[in-house]
């Protein structure tokens, strides 16, 4: 009971500071565990070589060829690949913001959208179809990707609202159905319209339909173009940021958003207040799906990667990393932008480690640990809130005594 009472009294400001500090704690612990993992990996490699190693040497090696890369990966830059790290990071961050928003939006309405990976997959198919086969302009392809995701998101919503099947189970099943369906549709026994038999991937959008590629941009640093001419970032990141702001507005400033949140807080109370809970469940899953699908559009329409139907046996990581993004941001749409940048940062960094010693998946371990910690970050948060409360009380105690004094004087 006490927890429920304190939150509103403390107000939004200290509540969100509490969330922020809790998230930072999660990140810090995650990084420490990542460092330990790297240390162990380094130790194993050195022990295999049969050399006696001192702890100092090991720490140095782990730091230089492993952890430093993870921390600074997103800022990686060479003379002929200027701004490469930053470009890769914002390229990956754009879909992550979207899948993070997808999960966060569903969370706010009381649903757990574990299906962002499947919605992302179907969104990618719609985007690629619109681009390679229909040769539509980029904005139409983006709408197509959102549509694909929306359809795939609506299904678990319908199952939940009308058939009483838990959305977690449905989403998981439709993740796999979506993956296999997309692989089949693209490959079609080697005859698929988008399938390039020479590369065993889909045709590059650059060849098939250049107008479907997202526009690129460059920035000036010290009078020079920051990004080398071959590596230009796309406007995807700005689309994602605009989407985050829009979702924030919808959730916090509109009646529609209020109704969705009311359903999430207490379904029965919302029903009693005349809100159609079934419609809202389907709608919020549809919107969540559209967000994840749009994320896939932002990634695949940047032309940096093609779909490989024969080797895509695992669900896209962007979908599941969306869960980390949303949890780290405490489901705050604006927070998703920053947490997505963080996850993209360590993922890009993972790829820059010395691969002969440190597999790049160490960064996945870090984000896995971060979600695990986020699951009980409420614990951190309530601890931090208690700290605030104690300070608040101490501050309040003094002026109230003064006020009492004044009253008496009067």
């Amino acid at each position, binding site marked *: 009971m006490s927890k429920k009472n304190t939150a509103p009294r403390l107000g939004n400001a200290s509540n969100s500071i509490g969330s922020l500090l809790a998230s930072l704690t999660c990140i810090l612990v995650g990084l420490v565990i990542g460092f330990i993992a790297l240390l162990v990996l380094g130790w194993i490699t050195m022990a295999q070589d049969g050399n006696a190693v001192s702890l100092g040497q090991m720490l140095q090696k782990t730091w230089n060829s492993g952890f430093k890369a993870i921390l600074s990966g997103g800022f990686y830059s060479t003379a002929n690949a200027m701004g490469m790290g930053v470009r890769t990071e914002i390229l990956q961050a754009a879909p992550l913001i979207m899948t993070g928003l997808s999960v966060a939006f569903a969370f706010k309405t009381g649903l757990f959208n574990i299906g962002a990976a499947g919605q992302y997959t179907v969104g990618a198919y719609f985007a690629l179809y619109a681009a390679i086969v229909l040769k539509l302009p980029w904005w139409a392809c983006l709408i197509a990707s959102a549509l694909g995701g929306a359809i795939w998101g609506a299904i678990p919503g319908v199952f939940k609202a009308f058939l009483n099947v838990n959305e977690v189970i449905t989403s998981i099943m439709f993740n796999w159905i979506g993956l296999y369906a997309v692989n089949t549709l693209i490959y079609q026994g080697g005859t698929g319209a988008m399938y390039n038999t020479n590369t065993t991937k889909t045709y590059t959008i650059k060849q098939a339909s250049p107008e479907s590629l997202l526009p690129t941009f460059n920035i000036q640093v010290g009078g020079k173009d920051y990004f080398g001419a071959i590596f230009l970032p796309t406007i995807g990141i700005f689309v994602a940021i605009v989407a985050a702001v829009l979702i924030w507005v919808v959730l916090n400033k509109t009646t529609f958003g209020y109704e969705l949140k009311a359903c999430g807080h207490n379904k029965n109370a919302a029903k009693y207040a005349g809100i159609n809970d079934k419609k809202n469940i389907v709608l919020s899953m549809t919107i969540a799906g559209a967000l994840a699908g749009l994320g896939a559009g932002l990634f695949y329409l940047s032309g940096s990667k093609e779909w490989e139907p024969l080797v895509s046996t695992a669900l896209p990581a962007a979908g599941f990393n969306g869960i980390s993004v949303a949890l780290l941001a405490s489901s705050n749409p604006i927070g998703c932008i920053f947490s997505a940048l963080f996850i993209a940062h360590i993922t890009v960094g993972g790829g820059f480690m010395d691969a002969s010693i440190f*597999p790049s998946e160490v960064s996945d371990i870090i984000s896995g640990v971060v*979600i695990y910690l986020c699951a*009980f970050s409420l614990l951190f948060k309530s601890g931090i809130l208690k700290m605030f409360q104690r300070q608040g009380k101490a501050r309040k105690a003094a002026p109230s005594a003064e006020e009492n004094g004044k009253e008496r004087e009067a």
Partner: protein
Amino acid sequence: MWLLLKYTLLYASVLALVALGGMFSERSGVINIALEGIMVIGGLMGVVIINILNAAGVPVFLGVLLTILISGLAGTVYSSLLAFSSVNLKADQTIGGTALNLLATALAVVIAKRINGTDSPKISYNANTNKVLNNLNFSFQIGPLTLNWFIVVAVIALVAAWFILYRTRFGMRLMACGEHPQAADSVGINVYKMRWCGVLISGFLGGIGGVAYIVPAVGDWNFEMGVAGMGFLALAVMIFGQWKPLGIAAAALFFAVFRAMANIFDSIAFLNALNWPKEIYNMMPFIASMVVLAFTSKKSRAPKAEGVPYDKGSR
């Protein structure tokens, strides 16, 4: 036909083992969505142990037994992370489980790559690489039918699960904790302890299920794909089986037929004539589970208190 039976029994044993594990966890009141991750860890450990035992040259029977036990223990250890977060820290069980699924695949890939010393997350344990202990040692023949030891383990687990759940004090107490933990606590049952037990049992069975899925069917495994959704299918089996051992056994057989078709459709004449791509068959168990859940969920009776962290203070 024998081939269909072989693969059906193989996958039924996997699904039954893992779903029984899930049943113990959920009957104690903890949603175990981490089954997929537990299977990955169990499978990885099993494969690693097979290679270690092969190098050590242990007798085949002992090797098989140790592999099963150690992979089960690996699953148990991994599931303790779920128990700790959901019982002691009262964390959201679905999120904790999801985290463990992601963590398991990442861990498995990193460990597999380190073992290989290359960038490949594929580990082999077939007759070509392993002379003493390999995947074929886990199977045996009865006439024209190939069976494997995990089927035996699954049958034992099924009987034991039924007996433990319905005929022992422990089982009754476990179920009480999943239905009404407050009432259970009021008569002196330690809810935290029972929930820990439930999750750890699910870890043990899930770990064995992981190695049962990976080892008898193929001779090498790419850990990048985890266990391809088998743990989630086991969850559907558990729901379809209504959290009861016998129901789970029947549901496991039903789903296993669909899963087995993906392996053998090209050797069955009329399926081969349809000329469908393999992916359709891969999809089938998932579609089947959705159809089944759509029809049964309205009547579905899950343990009442599952997913709700038990707080002694709020009794």
